[in-house]
């Protein structure tokens, strides 16, 4: 197999008000189906070790977990090298059930925005209320960042992890870099 690399080869920007890093290859599996059904719950539990999350939330620890994407779609996160195995296992569990499991790892790029001003950087780009009372770790939001679709959650109180399409990785990185450039803080959440 060829040597898989991330879209921007681990690009970083550390001199702004928040650090922007491209996250290493992350296994991502799209699961579509009836989220209330038992086989789907079983497949999710076996693949990620957690229950099907409630709307608008994500249960992510490290590089594995489950994110709620839409009323009939979940995003399963797992280590990159176990994707094929996990997909096969989920397909087995879901045999005969009206559901779809697809490996989308190489179709996506992930970024991490970290630092005390991370909220501010994100709030400049997404039309989302990012006040600490309105968006906190455990929540998950699909939205628009400038002109591209994206989804994000907070691994901890000072950082965001963003998932976007791989073809838009450079755009997203440049966007985050500009939003985080030195001296651009306005302390709106402090």
């Amino acid at each position, binding site marked *: 197999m060829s040597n898989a690399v991330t879209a921007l080869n681990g690009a970083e920007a550390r001199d702004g008000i928040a650090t922007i890093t491209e996250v290493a290859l992350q296994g991502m599996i799209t699961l579509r189906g009836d989220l209330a059904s038992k086989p789907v719950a079983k497949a999710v539990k076996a693949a990620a070790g957690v229950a099907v999350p409630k709307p608008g939330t994500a249960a992510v620890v490290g590089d594995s977990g489950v994110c709620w994407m839409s009323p009939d779609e979940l995003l399963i996160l797992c280590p990159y090298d176990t994707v094929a195995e996990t997909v096969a296992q989920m397909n087995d569990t879901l045999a005969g059930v009206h559901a779809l499991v697809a490996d989308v790892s190489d179709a996506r790029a992930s970024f991490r925005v970290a630092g005390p001003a991370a909220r501010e950087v994100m709030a400049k780009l997404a039309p989302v209320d990012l006040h600490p009372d309105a968006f906190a770790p455990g929540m998950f939001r*699909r*939205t628009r960042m400038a002109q591209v679709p994206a989804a994000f959650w907070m691994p901890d109180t000072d950082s965001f992890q963003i998932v976007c399409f791989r073809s838009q990785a450079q755009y997203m990185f440049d966007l985050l870099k500009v939003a985080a450039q030195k001296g651009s803080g306005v302390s709106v959440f402090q």
Partner: protein
Amino acid sequence: MLILTCPCCGVTGEETEFHAGGEAHLKRFGPGSTDDDFESYLFMRENPKGVHFERWRHVYGCGKWFHAARCTMTLEVFGTYPAQTLAPPQELCDAISAKRPGWSWRAFS
């Protein structure tokens, strides 16, 4: 700017996260229908000043279609409701009546 709440995922967002999908509750007339029906299905649209019903899609979010009732004059959104229906829910019509007494839109009032 419109602030819409998607009834499918519960997210409240501003209109750039959504995409307008034209007038709501159109009945399709296809091949075999009369010319008048076909013409009205294709071209005849409401253009009200006031209460209006539209289809919207949560394009940057859950991707689902839904219906929205809003005022074209004040941009007030009266409410949103699922796409799988032929008429707005009665509670929503009542809520609109409380704010815009005497409103009517196509067959609804």
